[in-house]
């Protein structure tokens, strides 16, 4: 009969997305999530003591089995091409704004960046690093954006608290008063909810 930690090992091996403690609990029929966490911790400690190629990391609200960074040179030689492209600077900056101020609307993102963010938001949505979280209770009812779990995984973050603290608060300037944003950040007022601004550019 397999030991519970070994079952956890099998489960972690068999998932390519982070495995939540709750799902471990469910699959192993454990009484509580804490028990599941304890099993992972035990396995993780074992991996760390042995100091081999694999490690267990906590990311995006779950656990993942990954190779340690020291092995990158050989894995790169294995030429498992990574189709995932690096994000551009505008994309990273937009992501930073959303990560800190979520949920946040496009006009607000525009105001911080001083430029239109339509295209960037679109590609971040496409890569599922952000999602639409609803609409803002403001004129034009613009969409609100927030980061996804995929975002946490892509950047190796356990949760949003893993983001570094920034000196001072990130302040989103009022779009109406922001000189630069005038004229471009202003949402074209649609006749009703779901107005033309939403349909634009699709």
């Amino acid at each position: 009969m397999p030991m519970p930690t070994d079952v956890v090992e099998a489960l972690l091996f068999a998932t390519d997305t982070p495995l939540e403690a709750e799902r471990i609990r469910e699959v192993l029929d454990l009484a509580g999530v804490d028990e599941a966490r304890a099993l992972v911790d035990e396995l993780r400690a074992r991996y760390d003591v042995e100091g081999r190629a694999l490690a267990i990391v906590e990311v995006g609200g779950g656990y993942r089995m990954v190779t340690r960074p020291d092995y990158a040179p050989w894995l790169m030689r294995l030429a498992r091409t990574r189709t995932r492209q690096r994000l551009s600077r505008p994309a990273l900056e937009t992501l930073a704004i959303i990560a800190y101020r979520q949920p946040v609307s496009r006009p607000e993102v525009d105001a911080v960046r001083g430029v239109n963010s339509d295209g960037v938001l679109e590609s971040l949505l496409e890569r599922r690093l952000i999602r639409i979280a609803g609409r803002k209770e403001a004129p034009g009812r613009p969409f609100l954006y927030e980061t996804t779990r995929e975002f946490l995984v892509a950047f190796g973050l356990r949760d949003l608290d893993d983001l570094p603290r920034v000196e001072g608060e990130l302040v989103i300037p009022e779009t109406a008063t922001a000189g630069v944003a005038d004229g471009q950040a202003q949402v074209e007022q649609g006749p009703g909810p779901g107005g033309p601004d939403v349909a634009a550019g699709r």
Partner: protein
Amino acid sequence: MMGAATPATAALTLRVGEFEGPLDLLLHLCRTSEIDLAHLPVRTITDQYLAHLEAMEFQDLEMAGAYLVMAATLVYLKSRLLVPPDETEEQLDDEAQAVREELEERLREYARVKALGGWLAAREAEQARIWGRPASELPLPDDIPLEDLSVHLLERALARLIDEQRRRRPREVAPEPLSVLERMTEILAVLRDTWSLLFSSLLGAEPRRPEVVVTLLAILELARLGHLRAQQTELFGEIVLERRNGKEDAGGADAH
């Protein structure tokens, strides 16, 4: 010397593409002149900004507009400088001073965002050094985790349907019993990680009849498609399932 009105000519060769927008350019000018973001020297920075703007070539009208609006703000500030001009302590009237402070705040804010963007970039690079298990072809990349659902996905799905209707391509009616499809997905996912398994291990402890039927159908379909081989060594004996090392294996290598 930051009092110099003419910016370094070397800086003028910078292309538009190197800046994310007017704030980025302004920040760059402040950084190269080691300017304190809390005390923006209006005269110097305006002159430098305008000089750069002249050297820029815009392809994007909207982007050009954003740069021009910033230019207008700076020129406005410069025009409100109280005379006599004092190089060390620039004085503005209250109204203009408010605009300056807002601009300074936005600049600091942008500086923070830029720093965070840099942090994320480093983080991304770090993540590129670790490998997880290869993403399986299954579940399909189209499958969205419930917590990452977003209305733009619905919007696109509908747009796709409408588009298809427009092109008047009538869809073929075909049966799609999803639970069999789902079970096929599940079995393939397990076989990826374990290579061979017993039919009985696919079922729960007390399998219900429909579950057995669906599982059996899924296996038959997978066998037909060449994804697995099912073997029964003796009559009424256990069915052993084995993943077939076929073309889907070769495809899997560059599927991620």
